């Protein structure tokens, strides 16, 4: 039962208010018609599914109805940060494994 910081409501809310929406930062190909069948299949169906740090999209469905991003460890379920659409994560698999960044995250959603 996660306690999730909504970067728009600027407070922690209970998991029941949110819906997970899969992997974050999956941009639709700009020119779909020029995208190969394989690449289109990848866009539709193929995901990172990492065991570890994952950037995912959530929506504060029963709340402000905004979509936002969550960086979460899929092994421990620790939420490392949350950040708005259009922003880039400050915590990544690389930053975690090299031990940098996490603490310097300045985005609104860093879990206290």
């Amino acid at each position, binding site marked *: *039962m*996660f*306690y999730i910081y909504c970067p728009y409501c600027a407070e922690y809310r*209970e998991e029941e208010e949110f*819906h997970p*929406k899969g992997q974050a930062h999956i*941009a*639709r*190909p700009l*020119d*779909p*018609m020029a*995208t190969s*069948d394989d690449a*289109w*299949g990848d*866009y*539709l169906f193929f995901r990172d599914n990492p065991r570890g740090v994952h950037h995912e*999209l959530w*929506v504060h*469905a029963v709340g402000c*109805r*905004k*979509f936002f991003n969550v960086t979460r*460890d899929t092994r*421990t*379920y*620790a*939420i490392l940060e949350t950040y708005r*659409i*259009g922003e880039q994560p400050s915590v990544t698999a690389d930053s975690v494994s090299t031990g940098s960044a996490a603490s310097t995250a300045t985005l609104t959603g860093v879990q*206290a």
Partner: protein
Amino acid sequence: MSELQQRRVAAGAGLGLEIDRDRPLAFTFNGKAYQGYAGDTLASALLANGVDVVNRSFKYSRPRGVVAAGAEEPNAIVQLGASEATQTPNVRATQQALYEGLTARSTNGWPDAQRDMMSLIGKVGGPFMPVGFYYKTFKAPASMWLTYEKMIRKAAGLGRAPSEGDPDIYDHVHRHCDVLVIGSGPTGLFAALTAAKSGARVILCDEQERFGGSARDSDETLDGVPAPHWVAQIVERLAAMDNVTLLVRTTANGYFDHNFVTLHERRTEHLGDSAAMTGGRRQARSRLHRVRARHVVLATGAHERPLVYAGNDVPGNLLAGAVSSWIRRQAVRPGERLVLSTTNDTAYRAALDWQAAGGEVVAIADARANPEGAMVERARAAGMRIIAGSAVIEATTDRKGHRVNGARVAAVDIAGHRIDGSIETLVCDTVASSGGYSPVVHLAAHTGVRPVWRDDILGFVPGQTVAPVKGFHPVGAAAGVYSLGMAFDAIAEHLPAALAADGIALAPSAPPQLETLAQGEAVGLYHVPHDKPTMRAPKQFVDLQNDVTAAAIELATIEGFESIEHVKRYTAMGFGTDQGKLGNINGMAIAARCLGQTIPETGTTVFRPNYTPVNFGAIVGRHCGELFDPERYTAMHQWHVEQGAAFEDVGQWKRPWYYPRQKASGERETMHEAVARECRAVREQVGVLDASTLGKIDIQGPDAREFLGRIYTNGWEKLAVGKARYGLMCKDDGMVMDDGVTTCLADNHFLMTTTTGGAAAILEWLEIWHQTEWPELEVYFTSVTDHWATMTLTGPEARNLLSELTDIDLDREAFKFMEWREGTVAGVPARIYRISFTGELSFEINVQANYAMPVWEALFAHGDQYGLTPYGTETMHVLRAEKGFIIVGQDTDGSMTPEDLGMQWCVGYNKPYPWIGKRALTRSDTRREDRKQLVGLKPLDAEVVLEEGAQIVLDPKQAIPMRMVGHVTSSYYSPTLDHGFALAVVKGGHKRLGERVYLPMADGVTHVAEVVSSIFFDPKGQRQNL
């Protein structure tokens, strides 16, 4: 009757701190009447009355009695309940407070636990039922397994479920706090007080009937007063603080992510069978507190470990600490002559208390070569015989196995796992044992944290927490700190700092003062050796509830089950309702020895919620019965109810399905009759449908039109203000996901309608594309589903009727098909859409929902002369199907493209923006010619209504498995066509028009149908343009 309480120590000895001898309570067990006192548990009351055999064991049907005083009890599992509806299976007698009229039975044993017939099987068959025997037998013949299985099932199980519904209610409370303290022993109380003084929100819970934990019956002095008094003082102080919530009889059962903890508060289970009404109001029998805590203090103490020796399951074998608890709390001394077998000092208290309660201490077998320490000295001073370096290797019993009658004591070589020297048999009726303590780490483990073994305390403690578990503080015995003074110091030192780091400022609290006793070091003994090898010795039980013996564990390892998880699953160790609270560590230690490993190498199995079992009702709370799931109503709902409508569940909505009328004969119409009548009314006169449940989304903004063009498959560029258009929506895989009519209200303003079931999902769909992919588009979406009540007036007389009520010019030229107008209907401002889902002349009237009823009633007030008939979803389905209009979710299943549906006319191939779904339509699979395509089916026999879901074949003569080419998606009898007809999807169907297909049915009949156009009625669409 109180003379029956033969094991109750007389008043005057200062024992029985918690019972009220002035409040006797009558209860029955296995049909026999007994008496106990207020303050008893069912277990202490049974012991007081000398009831030794409380149950029969699971596999061998051996007599079993109470062994423990708390949540760890494996044996005394009873069926509670005085009536059928209040039958409660598998209640731990040790955690059930006694109340007047309590009615309990053993869960196993026939005819009862005393004289059980199954025990014969246990005795005779026992040797042939080693662990895992069922995997090795009952295989032949295969057909017999179900029969064998029935027998096995009958013999298994504990209590039984009631056959009537639960008379009680349960509820939930959502709580948030700064500090949740689980366990109210001395450490929990001190931690709670420390935190509470800061003003922080504190919750303190304890599973027991009272606060205090081990301090309830401790003989220590805290801050200068006896421990039980100290408890009372602290509780009183806490109760006076408005930032503290005290929850007694409340078990923390699950510790979930990010410090979410479930607490189950038993509110009335100590009072009676069923929760009584208070002042005419229902009270919840129990309450689930769903707690989100910033910090969790785990002060759950430690469970004493019994020793594993032969015959250790016979009634009269008890946990040492439990013996003390009963004597001190309830003045119950459960026997006459005690032999204590221990590995540590603490257990000596049982012997001292036994003696103080007037019992005889025959001997103390201490596994340590040189027991020393304050408690040992006290025992010596009291004249007790201490046999050093020894242990009870076997408890002997009377012939029936109903009670211990002796203890065989021998010197034990722990390292060599053998006995040394001769065996002495002592006459006794009670063997109390203590093999040390296991910190209650269960909750910590729920979050995925593995316990860590500590050699110094011979137990597992909570492991280092991983990231998501922040603010987690094990303290006291739960943390493996068995010296209370050290535990207090640790709390005083670390808790303020931990909370301060989270902004909760604490004033330092002085740890309570106490006198510490010198303790001798304990030894680790888990499985007491016997003079015979384990496999040949009398049974030495590890898991009493599941009848798992040391031999079973050894056999499992012999058979190659080397992981402790395999051992668990092969032997069922720890699978019981007690989840191995007593036996697991011993079992792991035995497995470790058999495998030549250390205990930490062997590791623990995983502790999971619940800490103790919780009834389903308590977890369900009020989400049952009429509150199980919301029923959504339209503004006209009451009217439909009054008209006797039958309802259909569509999502959470209740929609009128059809309106059966009273026939002249006095009978109610069947659905078929009602629907035929409603259909004819629409086709011939006029009908009205409550269409309010359709999803409605208000879309405003300069880019609304562009947005629609990207989301829908068809074009919106040219839709003029005042006009409406049907649209299809696909996912990006090209499959149809929703449809509906969208109207251009003004240049920057559209109203989208969605399917009833799809409304919420479509709004979210629009938002996700807008927020994540096209934030630059200036457009906003707002749900107006509930705001508008919608009435579809349809049929040739629709215009005539409506014109009586509206100021809008309804002339066919002034207000064309697929247009909308604003005006009033029956004096109520309305928007009217000329759209049609029936194929008839239709006006969809929308008014603000608070004003729906006057309009609806006005329609009926004027409708008689036109034959106005209300119709439901079934008629709506027939009418739309006659027109070949699809229902997404019925005629589609997530695998149909617009082209499969024959709706190329609704696909804007040349739209500039690559709209959602477009790319997928050119993938190889979506281009296949033999895809399933939507067609009409006309059964050759006009009377036949094909079954929805019937499968279609081309060759009815082929053998099974048949090649199926599609199925019927919608099928009805058309009163208009006087013919059954259907919509279906058929492979390559669009090219099969005129062909015959076959539908072989379960009853052996094969229907024949012709593939036809999916439009059965008014193919040119003239009627809606009237």
